[in-house]
């Protein structure tokens, strides 16, 4: 049985290699309700993380895992780079399922391995009922996984890598 290859940082110079033409517009076989997810990444000193890669993976509006691709783009997958202000923006469709959420992977200089987290597009009271988050029952940290609705179809979700308000990250 072969042994795993270790993780290393993506470093600061990945932009050209990992830029996808339509990475910021998630495609799906059947587009559902169009939504926009925006946010900013902050480090432990509160400074924006200007050189991160944000990847998203989600269910289709029908609640099924996407399996196909259109126009050269895998369904259900988004990839964007944060700007100088640490901000990212992704357009997609509202995921299906009882508790809509988007899986998020973060890569950056200073991250020797990917950070994994999740953003819920549902009210916090409902998110608290997710059995996958049972270990956080009663913790205010659950709020770090919940996007705030801004207007009809826009959601805002900031990520704090370290310190006050640190986002909940998942074990590998």
């Amino acid at each position, binding site marked *: *049985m*072969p*042994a*795993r*290859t*270790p*993780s*290393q*940082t*993506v*470093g*600061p*110079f*990945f932009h*050209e*290699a*990992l830029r996808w033409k339509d990475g910021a517009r998630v495609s799906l076989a059947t587009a559902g309700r169009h939504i926009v997810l925006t946010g900013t990444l902050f*480090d*432990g*000193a509160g400074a924006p993380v200007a*050189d991160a890669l944000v990847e998203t*993976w989600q269910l289709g509006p029908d609640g099924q*895992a*996407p*399996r*196909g*691709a259109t126009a*050269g*783009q*895998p*369904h*259900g*997958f988004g990839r964007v780079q944060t700007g100088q202000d640490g901000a990212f923006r992704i357009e997609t469709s509202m995921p299906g399922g009882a508790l809509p959420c988007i*899986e998020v*992977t973060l*890569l*950056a*200089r*200073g*991250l*020797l*391995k*990917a*950070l*994994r987290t999740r953003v819920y597009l549902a009210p916090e009271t409902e998110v608290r009922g997710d059995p*996958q*988050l049972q*270990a*956080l029952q009663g913790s205010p*940290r659950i709020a770090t996984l919940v996007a705030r609705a801004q207007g009809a179809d826009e959601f805002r979700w900031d990520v704090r*890598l*370290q*310190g006050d308000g*640190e*986002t*909940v*990250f*998942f*074990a*590998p």
Partner: protein
Amino acid sequence: MNDMTRPDGIDPPYLYTDYRSTRLRAPREPLLALPQGALDRPGPLVPAGFVRDGDNDLTTRGRAAPLGEKMVVSGRLLDEAGRPLRRSLVEVWQANASGRYAHPGDQHDAPLDPNFVGTGRTLTDDDGWYRFVTIKPGAYPWQNHAFAWRPQHIHFSLLGNAPVQRLVTQMYFPGDPLLAIDPVYNSVPDVKARERMVCSLALETGIEGIALGYRFDIVLAGAQATPREP
């Protein structure tokens, strides 16, 4: 460390103070363990048309050949059960032969090469094989500590076939004296695991009289996710 949830010493911790940039970016709270298998499901499926012929040759982007030692790097992409990952996306990027990236953020005072961009992508074949034609990247200084130099390396990004398999790593070269002082390389706790990031010279995989050959196999986590049909 709060994050050694895979206690095999293979992956680096988030906080590794010798690598300065980890200090303000490593999470300090305990990581949340999701139920077993939560991330081991089929992930994004990259279509064949995503990669074009020639995307795996980094030496043909300019009007002339890039400077440097021409090389072929090839290997297999496997999971921990030894099964090949088929038609899985491999993306690479690297510095030119002088140790300079074609990137606006790279301030190293070494020349850019107009014939070298340093990015490539490919899909593995039915047996998990990938292959890139490129030039050997140069070492370069960085700001981490006094006299810090990164060993020669090529960055690899692997999408895998399930979210748990997503991996970004770096491939190093055998016998590089800079490995001993590199905090990124040495952040991997297990010495044998570190050595798996070092490719091996495999002359016969190169091009006779033209390019050196290096072999670099990559093993991803998991996965119980059933390999999908194309």
